[in-house]
């Protein structure tokens, strides 16, 4: 079917049934503008229509949770009259089409989500998944993504303190760029995006509206890519273009408006633009909004009302203000050189329902008239047919993994090493003076402070973790292991886990295997979070991550925030010091299921190792107390991807100190990625042992530090000098 005969609703990404449902919601056929508005709001990206049903299973409440999922960001009380706002999102498809702008505008969007709540953004994290670096297109992707983060994040003035950098074949055509932001606010400044008070004015703040990003949430974010290289290039006009200088001024102006209590409500314009901000703000407040589409400042002449209503031009906010405060608002915006235009008015509900009306000039023709809640809340909800993928027969996958000689094992470990400094040294990771432990360790550790929020002694630890190999192997158990890893990382930084946000990156939900993965991932997340009393305060589901019908491996990214009651400069880090003992905290394990070691041998390694939340909680508590005891630990690192072997290698490289490790029976113990284990380096082994035994955590001696090799007699022999070259060169070799 050629495009000129394609029905409009299909060109906009709506199915025939959905078009029928729109007609049902309106009680009449929609006009083209209304259809365009529904198409963006009912997109997968905005409506979560394939995932909503499942997300309800997540535990979202807790005594400290002030705002759970569904608002622009989750908010958690951290004491001292302060709260932390946190949000994670994906910007996958825009970054695949235009890596630099895609990654940059991902940051812009997440910042607006956080300062909308009244919070001052204090840190960003960027998990990145790209294809193999042997592929020039993947190098172009990664280089562009890092440049985008660097250019936008640095200039907007929020440090990027962590993330992930994963290169694997499944992401060559459909990469992933997730972005997370943490902000802090005095609890009483908490702002919600809720329009109130008929007669109040609706003001558009920030950039003029252009033709960029139209259809970003629908045809770009909610559909897969074709197979061939360059597929998706034609979607480039659906990628937004960012301006961090505009965002910086907009952020400062909005925070000042909230600080001075000049606003009734504030909402960011992100996916689905003005349509989303206006309908959600109105629906939450149970009121209507009349928008004068002609009053919206534009970048170019000739834009249609549908283009204005669905544009995803960046750096815009929607404010609701009492008429008497308009002059004060204007004064603040003038000083920050932020454009402020009155574009509408709050209207009373009609028969209990607020209506979003689009007018052609003040008192002009009504171009669209839609119940706000129909757009914002009443999208269809699907239970997609789900089916587990076919598993290999046990006889085809014996689970056994052949052993390697010590030199070959060392070469394997060396091939896994990659110093992320190439990426994070392009990010300002120190701004605001909060960074105590920066990128590259288990968790980033920050002072809990921001301009206008003086430091009162507390700290935050944060870690974002994904592992598509585990989650492809078993999405449910794999996700529990991610929660285990992220909480353990945070505890290694001294933080008591307080909340979690997640970004579920999956393939096409219309494929039954992907629908099954989604169910399993949510189940695993719910199970682990319940067992750890960890509330899920926000999340994002990114579907249709496919190219040429090939789905990515399920890639949930979980990010855990931990609270430190106090901070000190000499927190233990990932490193060894000479003349110390190495201890393993946690039960020694040897399951190889889903491990890198098994994968390298072309085997599955058997089922994924199970997660024991009771033992895990004991380990978390022990770690937090050990980390805060001055002088007790000289270094530490959790055991996860790559097992003890990779953990020990990273410890040795960071300290430039080797070790001799005994007491491991075989390579299974060396390469198992089973959860709930931490290696600690200490010159006070008796005290650590006593504390572990008192806490009921198994502790075993691994060996001693020193020398210039990582030697596990008979199992692994890694020369640190050559390993260091491999580690430092892994990224620059391809990218500089």
């Amino acid at each position, binding site marked *: 079917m050629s495009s000129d005969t394609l029905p409009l609703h299909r060109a906009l990404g709506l199915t025939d049934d959905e078009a029928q449902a729109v007609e049902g919601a309106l009680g009449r056929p929609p006009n083209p503008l209304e259809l365009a508005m529904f198409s963006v709001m009912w997109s997968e990206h905005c409506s979560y229509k394939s995932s909503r049903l499942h997300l309800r299973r997540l535990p979202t409440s807790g005594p400290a949770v002030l705002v759970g999922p569904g608002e622009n960001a989750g908010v958690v009380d951290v004491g001292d009259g302060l709260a932390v706002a946190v949000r994670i999102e994906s910007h996958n498809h825009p970054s695949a089409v235009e890596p630099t702008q895609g990654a940059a505008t991902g940051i812009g969007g997440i910042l607006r989500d956080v300062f909308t709540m009244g919070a001052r953004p204090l840190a960003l994290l960027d998990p990145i998944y790209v294809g193999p670096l042997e592929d020039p297109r993947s190098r172009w992707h990664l280089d562009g993504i890092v*440049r985008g983060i*660097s*250019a936008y994040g*640095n*200039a*907007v*003035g929020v440090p990027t303190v962590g993330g992930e950098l994963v290169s694997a074949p499944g992401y060559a055509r459909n990469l992933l760029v997730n972005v997370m932001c943490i902000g802090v606010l005095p609890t009483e400044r908490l702002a919600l995006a809720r329009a109130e008070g008929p007669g109040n004015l609706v003001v558009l703040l920030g950039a003029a509206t252009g033709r960029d990003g139209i259809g970003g949430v629908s045809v770009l974010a909610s559909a897969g890519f074709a197979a061939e290289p360059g597929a998706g290039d034609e979607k480039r006009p659906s990628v937004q273009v960012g*301006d*961090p*200088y*505009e965002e*910086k*001024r907009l952020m*400062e102006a909005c925070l000042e408006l909230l600080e001075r209590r000049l606003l009734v409500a504030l909402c960011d314009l992100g996916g689905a633009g003005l349509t989303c901000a206006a309908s959600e703000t109105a629906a939450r407040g149970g009121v209507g909004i009349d928008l004068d589409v002609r009053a919206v400042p534009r970048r170019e002449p000739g834009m249609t009302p549908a283009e204005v209503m669905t544009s995803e031009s960046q750096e815009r906010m929607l404010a609701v203000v009492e008429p008497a405060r308009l002059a004060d608002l204007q004064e603040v915006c003038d000083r*920050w*050189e932020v454009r402020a235009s009155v574009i509408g008015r709050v209207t009373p509900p009609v028969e209990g329902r607020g209506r979003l009306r689009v007018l052609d000039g003040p008192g002009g023709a009504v171009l669209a008239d839609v119940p706000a809640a129909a757009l914002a809340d009443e999208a269809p909800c699907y239970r997609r047919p789900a089916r587990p993928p076919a598993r290999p027969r046990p006889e085809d996958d014996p689970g056994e993994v052949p052993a390697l000689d010590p030199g070959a094992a060392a070469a394997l470990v060396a091939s896994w090493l990659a110093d992320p*400094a190439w990426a*994070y*040294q*392009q*990010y*300002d*990771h*120190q*701004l*605001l*003076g909060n*960074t*105590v432990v920066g990128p590259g360790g288990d968790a980033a550790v920050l*002072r809990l402070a921001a*301009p206008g929020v003086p430091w009162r002694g507390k700290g935050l630890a944060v870690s974002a973790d994904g592992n598509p190999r585990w989650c492809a192997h078993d999405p449910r158990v794999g996700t529990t292991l991610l929660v285990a890893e992220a909480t353990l990382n945070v505890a290694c930084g001294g933080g008591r886990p307080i909340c979690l946000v997640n970004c579920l990156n999956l393939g096409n939900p219309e494929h039954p295997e992907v629908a099954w993965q989604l169910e399993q991932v949510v189940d695993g997340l719910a199970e682990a979070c319940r067992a750890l009393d960890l509330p899920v305060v926000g999340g994002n589901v990114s579907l249709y991550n496919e190219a040429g019908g090939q789905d990515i491996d399920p890639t949930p990214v979980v990010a855990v925030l931990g609270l430190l009651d106090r*901070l*000190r*400069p000499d927190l233990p880090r990932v490193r060894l010091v000479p003349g110390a003992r190495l201890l393993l905290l946690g039960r020694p394990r040897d399951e190889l299921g889903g491990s890198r070691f098994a994968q390298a041998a072309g085997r599955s390694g058997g089922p994924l190792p199970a997660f024991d939340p009771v033992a895990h909680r004991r380990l978390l508590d022990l770690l937090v107390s050990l980390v805060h005891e001055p002088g007790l630990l000289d270094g530490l690192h959790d055991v996860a991807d790559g097992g003890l072997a990779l953990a020990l290698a990273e410890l040795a490289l960071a300290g430039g100190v080797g070790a001799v490790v005994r007491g491991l029976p075989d390579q299974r113990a060396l390469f198992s990625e089973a959860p709930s284990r931490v290696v600690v380096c200490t010159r006070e082994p008796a005290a650590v042992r006593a504390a572990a035994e008192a806490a009921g955590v198994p502790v075993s001696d691994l060996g001693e530090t020193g020398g210039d090799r990582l030697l596990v007699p008979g199992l692994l022999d890694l020369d640190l000098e050559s390993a260091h070259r491999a580690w430092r060169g892994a990224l620059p070799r391809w990218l*500089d």
Partner: protein
Amino acid sequence: MTARVGVVVFPGTNCEHDVAEALGRLGGEARMLWHQDPDLHGVDAVVLPGGFAHGDYLRPGALARFSPVMGAVADFAAAGGPVVGICNGFQVLTEAGLLPGALGVNRSLRFVCRPVRLRVERTGTVLTGQAEAGQELVVPVNHFSGAYRVDPATLERLEAAGQVVLRYLENPNGSQGDVAGVCNEAGNVVGLMPHPERASDPLQGGTDGQVLLRSLLAAALDRSASGARR
């Protein structure tokens, strides 16, 4: 007596709070100076902090030099007032003609954020009054355009006149002569790419920047005292 330091804020500046906090820790008092206000409000010293003044549109510092506050900064500098430009502030001072040379894009064509080793080449400036000649410091840099550029004759003159204040021991950006910071002839205007405020507290992993900020506070107090005598 407290040294009062004006910290200039352009739209796009982002290190002003960090500088103010670092100065506060050392007993100084920071006062924010808005770029559109041509009055320095009687401060004893001025810092132009890091960031992206006016979004670095055109090139870093190119628009900021036209902000109304810059006329007052130039007058203050001409009268011997201590003026320090950090990173973007250094770029602004070179664009404003208050310091020689220019800052070009890093040789790597990439942004660089990491600690670097520096050597104090010249004491007695408003930024190094309390430092020792030859003292080595570790202070982070954080910039995309930090490569110091100047014609060879001028560089020779700067070296001879002792206007190279700080030098990289490991050049992170391709600066000519490994120059990390320079001063004017009188030594009361200093620009540097490294961020002393990022090495001013043990929690940041280092305190080597303190000696530079302390020097500035001492210079500010000197000026305040001499002003009081007048």
